[in-house]
């Protein structure tokens, strides 16, 4: 590939051209830079939280500081990293190309979503310097509404604005998928990544407004003292939990569905086989999105909700396992007798399947009302959701990064560096979080600054694991820098992918396609 070739990177020059760009590819890169910075910040907090737990009692900080670090770690990771992560970065970059479009439906709105994320993050982040918040990322009432300081207001306002950004991105993706597909690209021919992003977008649009109103009510509660969540004034603090989880449970699928989309792409490409059960994988995304709205009560088994509600939520929660298992079995069936190449993206995909399965199965434990009484608010829950969110989403994010890196930059990501990064992250991850299952089972509660001396060894193991993970991500980041500086020219299709983005030059031209593609077959036709 000649260097003077015209592409979206050299189409316009200067920082201003980036900050005002309407090109979905550049916006994807801007999201990458922003979200990775948040990730770094959230990661530092994580390491500090773990460091504090290295010994019982005070290790480095006071309990107060610990509570704040834990809150910022959770809020940053959830609202600024894992929720926007894959859709905003890779969705933006590949979704239009994958369906043969020149851009998303509303490029201006797309840019605006990025700015809203930045503004929201700035407001939330500013509380770090003015008013520290120590509520945990769930902002549960009555603590958040009555007991703690006013810093909760800007914190929550920032999250509200970030939610807006998420809604607008989702809306944009839905219309793009409906309206901008290339000729011949029927809904049953769109790549599975697009199906995943589309289902995610539906969740973003339908669930996030409920979070918005919940956060507004919390602000109203704090400023006007309306009493909706205050038992002293006739309200009910548990209502907040219902509202919160009505969003936040679907939100866990906003986090995981895009990851599943990535894994579908990786499995297809690196097994060189037509994906097994395309329709089943596609529709299971929609099914997961649908069911996820009906299960929020499993976060509240011990909140005093009726026994009947408990049983019902328990049952529906387990139903989510069905479409999830469908995906997993289809991926495995695809890999079966395929000519699998264990390049680093594929390693991350396999890591995803492994860790996500553990996370999902422990979810079934938690969904059983009787067992949850034992595990609720213990480290078991912490281990569960880290297995799904980190083991699932972040593994997929790394896989996506290495897989699409050559398309985005025109340079190959060094596979050896990718593998080293994978070894550290994967092993570090298990060293960090597996002991937490045991700790939870032994009764160590979550969100505590201190613990009984009997828990010391397992906690130290966990802290040690966190350093391995940290190293793994640093290696991954080094790989990005190395590839940008020294990477080999990638060519159009280094991995032999079959979806549309691999039919155009790397980096893609400004308008993606010189000639609008016309589709005559499905997305993964390896023969």
């Amino acid at each position, binding site marked *: 590939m000649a260097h003077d070739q015209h592409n979206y990177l050299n189409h316009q020059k200067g920082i201003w051209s980036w900050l005002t760009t309407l090109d979905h590819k550049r916006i994807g890169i801007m999201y990458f830079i922003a979200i990775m910075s948040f990730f770094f910040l959230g990661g530092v907090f994580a390491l500090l939280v773990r460091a504090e737990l290295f010994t019982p009692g005070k290790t480095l900080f006071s309990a107060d500081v610990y509570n704040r670090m834990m809150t910022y770690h959770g809020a940053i990771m959830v609202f600024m990293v894992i929720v926007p992560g894959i859709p905003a970065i890779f969705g933006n970059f590949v979704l239009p190309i994958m369906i043969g479009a020149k851009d998303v439906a509303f490029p201006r709105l797309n840019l605006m979503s990025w700015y809203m994320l930045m503004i929201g993050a700035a407001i939330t982040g500013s509380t770090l310097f003015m008013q520290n918040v120590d509520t945990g990322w769930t902002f549960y009432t009555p603590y958040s509404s009555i007991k703690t300081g006013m810093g909760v207001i800007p914190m929550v306002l920032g999250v509200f604005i970030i939610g807006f950004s998420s809604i607008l991105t989702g809306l944009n993706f839905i219309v793009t998928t409906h309206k*901008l597909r290339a000729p011949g690209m029927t809904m049953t021919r769109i790549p599975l990544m697009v199906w995943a992003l589309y289902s995610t977008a539906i969740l973003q649009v339908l669930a*996030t407004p*409920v979070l918005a109103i919940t956060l507004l009510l919390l602000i109203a509660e704090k400023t*006007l003292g309306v009493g909706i969540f205050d038992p002293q*004034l006739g309200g009910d603090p548990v*209502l907040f939990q219902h509202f919160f989880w009505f969003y936040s449970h679907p939100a866990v699928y906003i986090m995981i569905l895009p990851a599943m989309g990535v894994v579908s792409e990786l499995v297809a490409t690196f097994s060189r086989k037509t994906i097994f059960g395309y329709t089943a994988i596609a529709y299971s995304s929609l099914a997961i999105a649908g069911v996820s709205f009906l299960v929020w009560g499993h976060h509240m088994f011990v909140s005093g909700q009726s026994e009947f509600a408990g049983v019902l939520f328990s049952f529906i929660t387990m139903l989510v396992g069905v479409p999830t298992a469908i995906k997993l079995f289809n991926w495995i069936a695809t890999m079966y007798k395929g000519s699998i190449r264990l390049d680093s993206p594929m390693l991350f995909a396999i890591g995803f399947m492994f860790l996500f399965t553990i996370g999902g199965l422990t979810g079934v434990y938690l969904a059983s009302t009787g067992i949850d009484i034992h595990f609720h608010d213990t480290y078991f829950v912490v281990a569960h959701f880290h297995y799904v969110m980190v083991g699932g989403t972040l593994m997929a994010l790394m896989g996506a990064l290495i897989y699409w890196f050559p398309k985005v930059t025109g340079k190959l990501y060094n596979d050896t560096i990718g593998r080293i990064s994978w070894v550290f992250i994967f092993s570090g991850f298990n060293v960090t979080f597996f002991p937490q299952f045991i700790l939870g089972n032994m009764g160590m509660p979550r969100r505590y600054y201190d613990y009984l001396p009997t828990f010391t060894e397992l906690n130290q193991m966990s802290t040690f694991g966190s350093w391995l993970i940290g190293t793994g991500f640093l290696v991954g980041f080094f790989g990005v820098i190395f590839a940008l500086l020294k990477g080999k020219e990638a060519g159009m299709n280094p991995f032999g992918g079959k979806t549309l983005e691999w039919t155009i030059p790397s980096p893609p031209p400004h*308008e993606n396609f010189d000639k609008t593609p016309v589709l005559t077959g499905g997305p993964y036709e390896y023969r």
Partner: protein
Amino acid sequence: MSTANHAGAGFHHAHHFDSAEHQYESSKQGIWLFLVTEILMFGGLFVGYSIYHSLYPQIFHAGSKQLSVTLGALNTVVLLFSSFTMALGINYVQRGLRNKAIIALAVTIACAGIFMVVKYFEYTHKFHVGTVPGKYAYEEELSPSGEKVTRVGALLAEASKLSVEEREHKLHLDETEYEHLTLLNNTKNWPLFFGFYFVMSGIHGLHVLAGAFLIFWVLLKVIRNKVGPEYYTPVEGVGLFWHVVDLIWIYLFPLLYLVG
């Protein structure tokens, strides 16, 4: 309708759409999706409202008596009328009747203004008698029995010392309102109702302001000939938003004012 939106001589569609028609339909879908999110957001409030209404029907009964059905009904009529003028405005823009469109849109903005003025009077009256949300409804000092006194309670105590005429004159309290306030004040936790009242009508009011601002924005577009029979997506989008704001009020009015 959409066939009228074909690319005319002057109008240029964005590069990633096939035609002006294509762009119009995409924009319209986007606007509808956005409106769905608005309805869901208010939906959260409605759910909260229904839960508390079924838990404490007395509070909502006593609270709603305190609202002025006349003013609420007046505002309902004003908003319905404004939806009509908005629809006219869109129609005029589509038919290229620029001057009529300007009048229709201006009237719509005026209606929004009337709505907000009426709201202003409703709100200030509530501040006057002390029917305000949650903790602000309570007086700072505690009564001898240790129970918290509401501002309404304090007002009623003062009124009970006066004759009916003096109440009218000094406290601007007529007999019915005096009775309603007494009923209210005998209902435990009544400020919860006003929590809902202020939050729901407040967020709706913010939407009315946003709507008025948006209508003003498209009005400027009409004046500057930026929209017309070939291209009227923003006018139609803002119009849809305005109808939804109207629709939400149609639900708020009976829920807040008429449940008693």
